[in-house]
């Protein structure tokens, strides 16, 4: 294999370039190989298999078809086959490869992806968990542009256990920040963020390389902040969650969590979340759609960071 990358902590080898993705500085033995291959939807009638309109999966494989763009097949924990459709652009293929395919691949390896951005204040990391559209990336970008924080991740986040310190930690494992058009201005105000490029044709979201910005080392996870929406007029609600409730709430922020059960990963996931929340504070903040970003950031600073 000619090309080597580190994607979400996995050593990836392939015979083709992954677009703008930076090559691994010191490639190790591959965890995953990407192979080009003609693919077809798996046959009907397999046992214990989920058949959806565009995907088929069980505990052995995961197949996904993005019409007009690509077909993907994950076999076991370490092999991804992909077929680019005629006329499709590689960038479009990579958009789905880095999202659904890598999330499933990690899940098969019992590594779970949080819907979260992570920022470092010195040696402490804050994880902002939120669903799409609640401003995870904007919050991280704004804290980096205006408050001297360092972005570690901006949309999807993995947590690693450090056996030596006995803590969970966060390090950058996807070296980009992804911003929608109205937020592109943040990128030029954050030190170490490079020029961006469109994630996909006709999607107004850009991917900006941040490998020169992110902390070089892993940072200890200090707090988890869950961001939700309320229906109050410009009112921020806040509480701290304790006990077993932390597990129940935090586990809902796992990307593609509906696939945990069919892939046989529910128990491993529950165990992982239980360990993650054990040593950290979990804060819950509910903001209104009309709450302005500076007000929200000040609240986060006063109530949580301080």
């Amino acid at each position, binding site marked *: 294999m000619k090309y080597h990358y580190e994607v979400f902590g996995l050593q990836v080898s392939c015979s083709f370039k992954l677009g703008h993705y930076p090559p691994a500085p010191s490639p190790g033995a591959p965890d995953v190989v990407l192979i080009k291959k003609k693919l077809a939807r798996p046959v009907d009638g397999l046992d214990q298999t989920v058949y*959806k*309109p*565009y*995907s088929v999966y069980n505990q052995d494989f995961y197949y*996904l078809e*993005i*019409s*007009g763009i690509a077909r993907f097949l994950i076999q076991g924990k370490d092999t991804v086959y992909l077929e680019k459709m005629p006329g499709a652009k590689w960038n479009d293929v990579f*958009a*789905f490869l880095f*999202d*659904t395919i890598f999330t*499933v691949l990690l899940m098969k390896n019992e590594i779970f992806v949080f819907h979260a951005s992570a920022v470092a204040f010195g040696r402490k990391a804050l994880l902002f968990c939120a*669903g*799409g*559209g609640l401003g995870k990336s904007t919050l991280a970008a704004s804290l980096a542009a205006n408050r001297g924080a360092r972005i570690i991740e901006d949309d999807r986040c993995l947590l690693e256990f450090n056996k030596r310190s006995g803590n969970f930690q966060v390090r950058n494992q996807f070296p980009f920040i992804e911003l*929608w*058009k*109205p937020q592109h201005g943040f990128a030029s105000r954050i030190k170490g963020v490079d020029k961006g490029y469109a*994630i*996909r044709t*006709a*999607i*107004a*979201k850009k991917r900006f390389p941040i490998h020169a910005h992110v902390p070089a080392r892993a940072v200890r996870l200090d707090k988890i902040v869950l961001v939700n929406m309320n*229906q*109050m*007029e*410009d009112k921020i609600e806040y509480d701290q969650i304790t006990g077993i409730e932390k597990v129940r709430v935090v586990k809902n922020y796992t990307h*593609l969590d*509906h*696939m945990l059960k069919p892939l046989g990963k529910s128990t491993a996931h529950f165990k992982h979340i239980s360990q993650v929340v054990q040593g950290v504070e979990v804060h819950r903040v509910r903001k*209104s*759609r*009309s709450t302005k970003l500076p007000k929200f950031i000040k609240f986060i600073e006063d109530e949580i960071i301080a």
Partner: protein
Amino acid sequence: MLEQLQEKKGKVVWMASYPKSGNTWFRCFLAAMLTGKVNINHINTDGIFSSRHVFDQVTDVDSRLLTEEEVKLRMADVYRYHLKFSPKMEFTKVHDAYTYDLDGQPIFPTDVTHKVIYLVRNPLDVVASFANHNSSTIDQTIRLMNKPNGYLARQKNGLNINNQLPQLMFDWSGHVRSWLDQKNVDVILMRYEDTKKDPVGNFHRALSEAGLKVTKKRVKEAVALAKFDRLKKLEEEVGFREKNIAVKAFFRSGKSGGYKDELTSDQIKTVQKNHRRTMKRLGYL
């Protein structure tokens, strides 16, 4: 009624309307029929067609990575699959116009559609209510309702992160025509004004035409639970999560003909000129 819905599982009734035309009222009525109570923040009907959550769960793909046309090409399959797992026939709210994908197929899957209940309201009353809902002026709303490519939940500058997918509605007349003129699925037409005058008779008719046998007594009880004044009072007491944050209340006046106090004669003439043919067709002129 639940047993009858269970017998028809795998199918859906689309509750289609231009916004502010009585869809929420109908959903509250249905919730009352099914459960004997109305909790406005947990109306037990079956969500909205444009739910990003349903789409993402069925496709395993983050819909924010797809173009609007790519989403449309998948909608029919998404609902065919989604309905396979529902224990009963669903009643799903829709604000989209009846449109087609790039392959020329309707975005609403014909094979799993049981009926469409199309709720329509005099556009003169819709204007005032929709203006309040969007926190915009009457004139802005008149223009929006006359836009051939009018959308709901479509964000500016290509931003696409709303929890509802963008919904192409056309202009008000285009929305009505798209549903009433298509020949693929049966439509039960409900005029808001008729329902206001005779709620028991009209709600009963809608359910009967949808093949559901219910007694008038039961309908009457549900109508009482979903009475406008009661919904308005509930909103005042506990709030309503579907309300636009920028406005005071979702349940405003609910009146028919209230436009006479809220629109100027020029504004009335503009709406009538913009939608003359469709208003005539529906008996509003």
